[in-house]
């Protein structure tokens, strides 16, 4: 009697024993491992390997798979919008794999909930931040009425439906990567990162869903995303849904003049910084430009002065006195509205929070206060939140209808995500996004580049 082929799970990989010689070259990505004298394959190839074995009619013993079919009950009866049904159908048609690309506020979470209920497999939801983990936990608890696990931010509770952060999954997927049959990657444009990809590689889950508003990456690694999760199977753009399932919105750019003294300081700092770049022959337009600048700046007194000048001119364009005056004007203009003020860095956020006595939410805010700020903002206790980047992604604040971008990076994704914070539909809601741009500074050009994105084309 021949010994059956065995598949087991080992630290994010599959160990294959007794592989018939005829099959050895046919199993996707499997290789002989002389450290353990077995064949081995990355865990995410589980579905392909098992399909191959079945196709060859080969009996196998599977101890890798540690999940079964569940009977999740979706307790709420909500009818999906037509585009949500289309997205769900497209994912099923794609073999229960793939990426769904929808703008923020279009109900991606709801689609995932319906698919968890459809798929009926233990599910691991990956999110980029702790805030999102708690938010998903609350929504899933409400919909499924059962214990939902959390893994990350000091919590280590695995349940049949669990939410984890990407960071935590990279660390722990080698241990639990065989317990889930369905993996969901929220804000999945993060997944192709050098480390984050191992959250997907180390899991055997045959069913995979990625969700994002912007799958494209500057580094072009979205192909890696599609290899690990499945092709983009459904996409809708923000203008297609604006006014229907998303709020109507306007984007207003306010060009702000610096005060004379700040302008003088800005020009002087900028001159020092640029002349160092010229003298050291550093091209900031290249991918290594910033690293070269940091390195060269640390090598001499002149370099250190240039770095200081760089920070000064940046800080002045980010948070000039005139910008703060505009913030005050807009706060007054939007009395009774729910407003988020975004900044590029924590210092500016705390500067604004301290000046106007407002709650500031950054990664430094402790969990309890973070929840208080978010819940207070949702229920109207606080009408304004100041934040640097933690609200850029995913966190659901549907009540927000005004956003002020005091400063930001040049990233189109960041601005589209910030816009997304105020787009969730509410009856009669008109969302407004203000961008404060310091005139005649680097910000001006960054803004011009950003505005080429389709999300800006309605304004």
């Amino acid at each position, binding site marked *: 009697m021949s010994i059956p082929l065995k598949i*087991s799970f080992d630290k994010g990989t599959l160990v294959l024993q007794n592989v018939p010689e005829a099959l050895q070259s046919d199993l996707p990505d499997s290789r002989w491992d002389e450290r*353990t004298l077995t064949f*081995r394959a990355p865990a995410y190839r589980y579905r392909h390997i098992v399909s191959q074995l079945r196709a060859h009619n080969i009996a196998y013993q599977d101890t890798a798979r540690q999940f079964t079919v569940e009977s999740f009950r979706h307790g709420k009866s909500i009818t999906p919008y037509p585009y949500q049904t289309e997205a769900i159908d497209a994912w099923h048609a794609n073999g229960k794999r793939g990426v769904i690309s929808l703008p923020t506020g279009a109900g991606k979470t709801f689609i995932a909930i319906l698919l968890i209920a459809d798929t009926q497999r233990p599910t691991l939801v990956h999110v980029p931040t702790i805030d999102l983990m708690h938010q998903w936990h609350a929504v899933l608890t409400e919909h499924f009425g059962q214990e939902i696990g959390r893994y990350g931010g000091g919590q280590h509770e695995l349940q049949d439906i669990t939410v984890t952060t990407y960071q935590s999954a990279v660390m722990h997927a080698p241990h639990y990567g065989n317990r889930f049959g369905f993996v969901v990657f929220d804000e999945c444009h993060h997944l192709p990162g050098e480390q984050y990809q191992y959250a997907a*590689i180390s899991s055997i889950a045959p069913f995979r869903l990625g969700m994002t508003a912007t799958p494209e990456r500057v580094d072009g690694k979205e192909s890696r995303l599609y290899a690990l999760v499945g092709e983009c199977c459904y996409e809708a753009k923000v203008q297609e849904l604006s006014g229907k399932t998303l709020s109507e919105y306007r984007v207003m750019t306010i060009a702000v003049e610096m005060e004379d003294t700040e302008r003088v300081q800005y020009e002087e700092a900028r001159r020092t910084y640029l002349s160092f770049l010229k003298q050291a022959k550093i091209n900031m337009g290249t991918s290594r430009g910033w690293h070269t600048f940091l390195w060269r700046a640390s090598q001499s007194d002149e370099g250190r002065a240039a770095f200081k000048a760089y920070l000064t001119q940046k800080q002045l364009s980010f948070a000039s006195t005139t910008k703060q005056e505009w913030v005050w004007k807009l706060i*007054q203009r939007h*009395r009774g509205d729910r407003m988020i003020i975004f900044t590029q860095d924590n210092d500016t956020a705390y500067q604004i929070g301290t000046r106007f*006595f407002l709650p500031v939410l950054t990664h430094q805010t*402790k969990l309890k206060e973070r929840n*208080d700020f978010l819940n207070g903002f949702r229920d109207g206790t606080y009408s304004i939140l100041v934040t640097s980047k933690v609200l850029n992604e995913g966190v659901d604040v549907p009540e927000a209808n005004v956003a002020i971008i005091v400063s930001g990076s040049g990233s189109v994704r960041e601005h589209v995500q910030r816009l997304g914070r105020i787009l969730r539909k509410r009856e009669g809601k008109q969302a407004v996004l203000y961008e404060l741009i310091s005139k005649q500074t680097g910000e001006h050009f960054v803004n011009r580049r950003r505005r080429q994105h389709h999300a800006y084309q309605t304004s």
Partner: protein
Amino acid sequence: MLTKDLLRYKIKSGKISPQFVNPTDEQLLAVADQLISVFEGGINTPRATLLESSKQIIDSTPGAPIVKRGLEKLLLDRTEFDTAPNEELIAFRQKLFTETSRLLSQKQFQNYEDYQRTVLDTIAEGSRPEIAPTRNEAGAAESRSKIAPTGDEAGAEGSRPEIAPIGEVELGAKLYADLPSNQPVLTFNTLSAERLLHRYNAAQVQGLLLHCNSLTLKLSDSMTAELRQLFKYLRFNQLLSTIRKEGELYEITVDGPLNLFYKTKRYGMNLANFFLAVLHQPKWELAAEIQFRNKRVSRLSLDESCGIKPISQQFLAYIPEDIQLFQTMLKNKTEDWQIRPGSQFLPLAGDFYCFPDYQLIHKSGVETAIELFHPWHQGHLIARLNTLAEQKDVSLILGVSKELEKKPLIAEALETSAYFSQFGFTFRDVPTMRSLLPILNSFV
């Protein structure tokens, strides 16, 4: 550990060389001493003040700033800050923001100053003692319990507290006084200046190993307890190894399970931690390929002549507890066998080797060895059973954790292994003599 911007290295003809400091350099030792003094004296000091003091030393002493900032980083790694939430300040903010939100939603202000005055007046109002910070504040680190007066302070018989109006500057300094820059130092794990410089050199290597896929070690087999510790580190860091003999040296390739498919730096941190055990070996050669993002691969070659002293704790001077327990249990049952920590490589089928946990010596001179497999050694155990299935001339006893035995694949592998049925046993926490002695006696 050091971050990439603090690493010092040179790359020439594809070879990467860490730029070590001289641990006997008096000038650098003096700087290290000054930095250590700042950290030693920094208990209860806010983080920003501590960093300001250390920056003064970095700016005012001779030597490369990058080295001094590296030393500062290593000292910061040994410093614990008070990161507990400041509940009173959080409660103060909650009340203040509720109030400011109400004001901003409901009231039209003439200008910002009008708003500011209204907020300050509101705080100072005796009718709202709960949101009033006290005046007498001497620094952020002492801010706790001074934000809001308690009920007792507010007057036992309901009288209004005497709270002077608070100024804008004062409130501004207080509002977010619990940010990390204001967190006070709780403890600092001090060390000597010389040890700090050795730690710095080790951190230079570790910083490079974070960017490698795998490393290769060459060791002689003349060492004993040091090697045992090395293999403990290897297993503790969830790494895999291939051991081969090359001339008089053993060549050990260390990496992780996924290295078979990807040139991944996934195990960089594990390899960097593992390096600390290498430093305990009297003679070693290390080779690794280092690759920074979007850069070419560079070769790192190091041996014991780099002069870095071991910086992790060494447990060779005493007999580990498990061995002591094992020894006592064995002595209680029999005088015929002596137990020692594992001390040499054992050749296996092909050109593989293993490094057993214990050596057992019978009074007749017969020797055998035990290799223990804990719950995290599943992959190792499968490999060992596969190897031993083809081995006829080895004297190795396998001890397998009952936790590991619970896994269906392992249970079946053990059941079907002729070798294990003859030379294997299972254990819960430590091996028992009841299961071990019959196997031992079969050797004599």
